[in-house]
């Protein structure tokens, strides 16, 4: 009968499936080759390290969004957290003269406070979505505006430059030849990959995103897990804010603004499904790398800023089509 045939086909698809995370690798290779033709500087260690450092903050937000998307939810407000969490944390520790609240809180607490603010935003998102059964899309869209509005109101729309030592250290330090930001992001991605591949808590995200009712029937505490995911997501976005602030040496009023489009683009071209339950953290990472390399090549090529957006968009579409053809599966 048709039984053995089904088995063979399932087996073949599995082997393909193992590489589905890596469908962007050919794209990355093409970009590396193309980049080396564009400018000899491109393939130098210095330049590539630079790309990694520039993308590390965005990558952390992609990590956060990938976790949330795999669990079948949405968080648009992450981009506002990237600006607001460090801004408020810095204002809590610096004197009034530098634009702070002048509370006299020790500046060593700036980073913990920043992460706490991010976690609180995530917790509030989770509270609204789970307790009030609201749509994650709408809640976090409103929160995107609320959180950014809070930053604008508190800072008066001004940039902050009086940064605590700890922020500047993470922005500038080099550990074993690589920027600290790259180490932090790399370790967190490694942790994410391991958690989602080898731990029950991580696998629970796939179960919830794939079929929440089935997950509940299997004894997974769906609401609690989702809540934790939102909190982790907010915390990662706040950490991204710390790295970005340290790298740039200041917090402008629009830090993080507009990132969410790039974040979704990176996650989705990296194979994370918008419908939940599908994708891997490694895939999301390849998505970030594609975006980072494209940006770097455009800069080296000297493409005028006004045209960058267009080229970006087109390249994301092309990457999507390539990963669709290579992955052989409908994008969803």
């Amino acid at each position, binding site marked *: 009968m048709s039984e053995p045939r089904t088995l063979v086909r399932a087996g073949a*698809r599995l082997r393909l499936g193992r590489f589905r995370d890596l469908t962007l690798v050919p794209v990355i290779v093409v970009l590396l080759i193309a980049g080396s033709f564009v400018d000899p500087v491109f393939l130098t260690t210095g330049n590539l390290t630079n790309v990694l450092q520039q993308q590390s903050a965005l990558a952390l937000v992609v990590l956060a969004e990938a976790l949330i998307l795999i669990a079948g939810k949405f968080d648009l407000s992450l981009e506002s957290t990237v600006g607001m969490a460090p801004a408020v944390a810095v204002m809590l520790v610096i004197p009034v003269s530098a634009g702070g609240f002048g509370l006299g809180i020790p500046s060593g607490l700036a980073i913990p406070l920043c992460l706490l603010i991010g976690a609180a935003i995530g917790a509030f998102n989770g509270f609204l979505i789970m307790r009030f059964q609201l749509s994650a899309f709408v809640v976090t869209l409103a929160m995107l505006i609320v959180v950014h509005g809070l930053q604008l109101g508190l800072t008066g729309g001004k940039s902050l430059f009086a940064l605590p030592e700890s922020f500047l250290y993470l922005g500038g330090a080099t550990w074993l030849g690589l920027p600290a930001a790259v180490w932090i992001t790399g370790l967190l991605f490694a942790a994410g990959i391991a958690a989602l591949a080898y731990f029950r808590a991580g696998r629970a995200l796939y179960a919830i995103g794939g079929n929440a009712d089935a*997950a509940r029937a*299997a004894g997974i505490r769906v609401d609690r897990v989702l809540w934790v995911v939102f909190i982790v997501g907010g915390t990662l976005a706040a950490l991204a804010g710390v790295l970005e602030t340290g790298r740039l040496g200041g917090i402008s009023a629009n830090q993080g603004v507009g990132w969410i489009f790039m974040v979704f683009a990176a996650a989705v071209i990296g194979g994370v499904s918008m419908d939940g339950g599908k994708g891997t953290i490694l895939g999301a990472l390849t998505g970030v790398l594609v975006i980072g390399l494209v940006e770097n090549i455009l800069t080296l090529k000297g493409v005028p800023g006004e045209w960058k957006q267009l080229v970006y968009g087109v390249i994301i579409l092309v990457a999507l089509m390539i990963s669709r053809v290579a992955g052989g599966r409908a994008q969803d």
Partner: protein
Amino acid sequence: MTSTDLTVVEARGITKRFGPTVALDNAGIAIRAGETHALVGRNGAGKSTLVSILTGLQRPDLGEVRFAGEPAPPLADRDAWRRLVACVYQRSTIIPALTVAENLFINRQTEGRVINWRALRARARAVLDQYGLDIDAGAPAGTLGIEQRQLVEIARALSFGARFIILDEPTAQLDGPAIGRLFERMRALREQGVTMMFISHHLEEVYEICQTVTVFRDARHVLTRPVAELPHDALVAAMTGEAATAYQARKRQVRKRAPVVLAAHGLTLADRFRDVDLAVRAGEIVGLAGSGSSGKVGLAESLVGLRRPDAGTITINGVTPRPGDVPAALRAGVGFVPQDRHEQGFVPLLSIGENATMPIAHKLGRFGAISPSRRRARAAGMIETLDIKTTGPDQPVGDLSGGNAQKVVLARALADDPAALVVINPTAGVDIKAKRALLGSVEDAAARGAGAVLVSDELDDLRICDRVLVMFHGRVTKELPRGWSESELVAAMEGID
């Protein structure tokens, strides 16, 4: 019960309310060790609620559940529940993106901290072997067919160590041979001493596989009897609350000279069906029978434009619509009831009126506008003709029971007084009364002069057909005139003769 220690599970005096509706009213059930116990009742009788109470997903407002005489564990202790009762729910709880192995051990992938995938696959293979399932543990569950997914669910349910399993309408989505294989497994499990509660709308299945039957009606327990002591008519009467007879097909004479309203010539679709010829006259009902792989559903879907055949022509009411074009087929005068009403039949959030008048929206107003009052009027007419149980034409279809939702789908098919009607599995998952109303409406349409094609896995449904075409591996292999015997039809479907 003769002796309590033989009672595996007992629910006593269960009352459960959801807002204003009483889902269960002082109802109960007692299931003895080793039996296969049927739970039957019309849609809304309270079967699903009882399942969620027996599996610990919901707490009864009143009453108690006991397992082997012991009180049930607290609701939060899912593991304790799963050691006592296993359940294969009506809606699949398989997660398609995950592998079979992970689905089997979901949320218990490992005893320790880190998941060892190799060990997990080995454990999964052991479980699959134990139940004799030839399924690749490493394959994504989404690549399995419905039957295999269900077997994985049964294996998973039993792997928790429960000796009592609830099967909630397991046969609803399976075709004949697959149901046969499922029953073989159920018999084997029973021989190993597994107790089962079996829910189905198909009473002949109850007679085939069960020893005891419990009937629920309107949230209440009506009776519990050994199957052997309860004749078919008495069982139907207990379910409906009235003396009932099976649907009686009407006598009908198809005029030899009646025009052909739906015809197909040399119709072929790769891997589905080959070289099919078909001619349906006005006033005639033609049945299509066959197993799941016979291509009957694919053929019916091609007739209405849902699929685009590779070769051959389709003529509807004298015109040849563009192949694979649903609007063109509708314009030519076809009405159809799709196979899966939830996916293709209706928009759950829209009202009955809107759903039922979708294909005739252009007739309800000019320049693309739709007159709400005319729509309401048309919908009210349909509700009356088809006897749809509803609060009114504005009620969303998603709120209706399965049978009534299916009536809306049929109403939509009939909305434009089609010359040709294509109906796929109209009675799947609907109760006896709704079944009668649905089949009656198809016969009414034929009496009005429509030609109908009826595809069904229910042999009884095909009794209303003037002739039945049997398909086997994509070809029409036999034509049976009215008055066929069941064994004759089944033999043809299995390709035995």
